[in-house]
């Protein structure tokens, strides 16, 4: 199983969720966060390097079985990119998920995703 974590633009949330639903991925956890990627805005202010401000972002966490990984990533990639791919569009991180347990039933593993 994989844990897919995507950092996207807040304004893309609706589109990405729709794309995921279309790909039959409905289970998702969403967190408000803030971030800075390519540090395009390291301003110089009177000789001082300004820590660039953090921009609001949205973090998606999706646990999925291995075969769904690519589908999920593709759905996100398709929907989260801004018109011509601008800086700030975000990242997708994939980590290995060792266990997954459904609290309601106690089920474990792939079926609990």
């Amino acid at each position, binding site marked *: 199983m994989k844990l897919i974590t995507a950092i996207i*633009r*807040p*304004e893309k949330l*609706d*589109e990405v969720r*729709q794309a995921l639903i279309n790909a039959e991925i409905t289970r998702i956890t969403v967190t408000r966060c803030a971030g800075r990627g390519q540090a395009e805005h390291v301003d110089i202010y009177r000789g001082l390097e300004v820590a660039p*401000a*953090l921009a*609001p972002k949205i973090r998606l966490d999706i646990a999925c079985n291995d075969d769904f990984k690519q589908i999920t990533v593709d759905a996100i990639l398709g929907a989260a990119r801004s*018109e011509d791919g601008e800086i700030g569009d975000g990242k997708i991180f994939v980590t290995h998920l060792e266990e997954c347990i459904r609290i309601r039933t106690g089920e474990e593993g792939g079926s609990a995703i």
Partner: protein
Amino acid sequence: MNVIHLIMTAVMVTLFASTAHASGTPEVDSGTTAWMLTSTALVLLMIPGLAMFYGGLVRTKNVLGTMMHSFSAMAIIGVIWTICGYSMAFGDTIGGVVGWDADKVLLSGIDQTIMEGGIPEYVFAMFQGKFAIITPAIIAGAFAERVKFRGYCVFIALWSLIVYNPLAHIVWGGGFLTGDAIDFAGGTVIHVSAGVAGLVAALYLGARRGYPRVAMHPNSLVMTMIGAGLLWVGWFGFNAGSSVESGLKTGQALAMTQIAAAAGALAWICIEGVLHKKATSLGLVSGILAGLVAITPAAGDVLPVGAISLGILGSLFSYAAITIKNRFGYDDTLDVFGIHGVAGIVGAIVLTFFLRDEPTGGLVQQLVHQVSGVGVAIAASAIGTLLLVWLVDKTVGFKLDERRELAGLDHSLHGEHGYGMLNPN
């Protein structure tokens, strides 16, 4: 008659020693003036109140943009009203449709004027100005979350000039309906016209992207509730101030306002309690508003029983209207028509049956007056709005493009975020 003359002089001297006027013009009544000044402040309070009410109901990304609609109405209409609005609404009538009075342009000729009721005309002009401000601010709720700021600014400026000022003139300022229809504090001029304008604009502009597929949650019902509280308080100025005195009629208007608001709120949570087994805070405050809107045209002319009834009917009809809207599926974002339009119409018409004094022409005659008053407001507002929305859309542009709408007004139009605290910075 010498004695009487002496008496009059003595009275004048005693009472008005501080004012410099000759005894020919009306003298200032400090009490009435005090209440009208207060009313003006109270109605002004309705603008932040409305900004909070509306602002809390939209999605987080649009909170500032929505509040800006109310606040910029203060700025824009505040200036226009000074320049020519007051003149257009309360100047000498031109064919019963609109007023004009060189003396009232830039309020230049009223600097020393005391009106009949004993208040400086400035105060009356400012009190009325607040109504001119709040009406477009109310409309804004109908197309919240999807219009350009520039387009909105142009729209409300034109709407004020072409729809509001003439309408105010027609009903209050000496125009062709003045005196016939009962509209104590602006049920038709303000609420019906705003409600209809909202409906027309919402239909013309189309729904928000994603509506109704995507759930759109209010960003802060807490703020909405507080806003409703301020609106209630401000409405005392709105209605009781419309008596333009500080006396019996004022007290009547204040009492009816209070009673109808309470009844409206109670009715709405009862409806919800019966239908959903849950009373919501949004329901309660919607009921407050519906009650307040319904009593607005009637505040000075009905008895408590009437106020209770109008409050309840306002909530009932508004509730029904919103339910029906959900069926139709057009997107009146914050239910401007459902609440202001519907409760306003209900109030303006139903008040006929609760009047304190039998109307001079009889019930039926009065009903005709009321219906035609409402009709004029609907017609004027619908036609004017349609024209203006179209015009603005074709020129400066009104509806936001998809990218900026999805990104949210705050970021894309104003370059800001409403709740910086959410951002761990």
